[in-house]
């Protein structure tokens, strides 16, 4: 199930970030990071022994891995990669797309 969830969420990034058949470096990195990170964090939570003595960031180690690892760390990584990917084709790329769509529409076309 962990593998399936990680694959589904990472492939959603891949699907959404593909522009004109190409996946940018930051988007590729984001999908790879999310896939490996989720498998690593959830896998560690399942695999590590149930240690009730050692605390990490004030929480039991396995709980800290899930709460901080999954709940907070991606916030520091994914939005930054999104911003880099968004700027990859220049800030005006969205305006380019809008203009291209308008042109296609005024050409009357359905495909």
């Amino acid at each position, binding site marked *: 199930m962990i593998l399936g969830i990680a694959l589904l969420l990472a492939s959603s990034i891949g699907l959404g970030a593909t522009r004109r058949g190409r996946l940018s470096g930051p988007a590729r990195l984001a999908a790879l990071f999310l896939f490996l990170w989720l498998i690593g964090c959830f896998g560690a939570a399942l695999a590590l022994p149930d240690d009730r003595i050692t605390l990490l960031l004030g929480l039991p180690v396995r709980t800290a891995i899930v709460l901080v690892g999954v709940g907070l760390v991606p916030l520091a990584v994914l*939005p930054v990669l999104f911003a880099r990917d968004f700027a990859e084709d220049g800030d005006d790329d969205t305006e380019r797309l809008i203009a291209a769509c308008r042109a296609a529409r005024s050409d009357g076309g*359905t495909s």
Partner: protein
Amino acid sequence: MIGVPLLAFQSKALPSFVRPEIIGVALLYFTVCAGIAVWAVRRTRTATDYFVAGQRIGLWTLAIAAMAAALSGFGFIGGPGLVYTLGIGAVFLVLPASITSSITGWVLARRIRVLGEVRGLMTVPDAIGARYRSRSAQGLAGVAILVATVGYVATNFLALGIVIDAVFGVGLERGIWIGAAVILAYTVPGGMLAGIYTDVFQGTVKAAASAFVFVAALRTGGGLGGISTTILANDPSWMTPWGKLTPLAALSYFFVFGMGALGQPHVIHKFYMLKEPRKLRWYPLLMAASLIVALLLFVGVGLAMKAAVARGDVPALAKPDDATPTFLLHYAPPLLAGIVFAGVTAAIMSTVNSFLNVGAAAITHDIPVALGRRVDNELLVGRASTVVLSLLALMPALKSGTLVALLGVFGWGLFASTLVPSLALGLCWSGATRAGAIASIAVGLVGTLTAESLVWSKTYAFPAGVTASGLSLVLSLLTFFAVSWLTRARAAADLDADVRLIVEG
């Protein structure tokens, strides 16, 4: 398996909070909301103003309003109660918050914004209609949104009545009427333009209240380490990563709420409203950061109350919904309690306002379009539809606790199973077909209603780890891919040239 009904609250009363300071903060909060609403109502002149805030909002407004709409009263009352009961496993409901905004950014934000501008769209089903050149798909999506909206609004009206009763001591029924009247006072005349700016204020109150309470919660237990040590000594299984849930059940919630975020119309709808699409670059960062701040209370109060009960500082809670009120009564100064209650009220009102808007748009726009009709005066009919929708939601909220509970559990799953495949995946995949979209929406609609009804009526219990919402979403996704593949010869014909450019990015 322990069921997790996603209602704002699971009980029909909170401890009384009738105190002058809290009433004062509540009145101040309502006054500010009223001031913003009056300002916005004067600027509402067209259907575009009413349904998409005139398409002129900025990035901060978009992100905070989306956060405010996404997080209902559940995050402040029902959620901490679930954490108190189920342990860390309950956090899996909100754990995807650090991920979903970025995925939504990649999959939907730019595409919806561009599609809205090029086609002049106003509603989420509009985007489905444009993607598949299909009035049927648009109408069916409108029906699904309408059904889910009535349920969501009914549960939130009930929740608002409970909060107003706790603060002002007016009784539940009168509290529901007062709450509904306040929301309608700015939603009916001002629509989304009034809603979006009150959302910004309400989102700010919500985040501030959450942050203050989180700090107070950590202080009560001697920091996170002190709280953990206390709980581990008394109920160690509560502190495991899955809490009282099985790993499968916890991960199932992560899946449903991770993928389901791509199908929430009250959030997606707001992408139409952004003035400058290039500003979307920083949307995921602002949305995720504000959402996580607003969710600190969800985790913090659950942990603090579990530790407080374990230490014997407070007696065991009679019901889970008492977690936040009991924490405020014992550990927060009255002013902070007032801010938190304003935060709860803000959470409920911002969510209701957004749902009323998307629901009214379904009645005014999407369903008539599917029937081949156009409403002449969408602004006027939109206002009337908002009133009708509110009355529909008020009936179960006032009359029946059990019916409102059933309606409440439909919402999230219904949106996820009907909109994630057809809208989110359809806008990124040119191989999706009209037949695939219609079939997946139908399967999502019927599947969610049937599965949730069976579970709710205790006619059938799914195996541990399987949720009705998760099952419906999987079935809907499989249907979408299978029918699209079977009808793949039609894929190109179902895609206009401009929409193809958007799908291809």
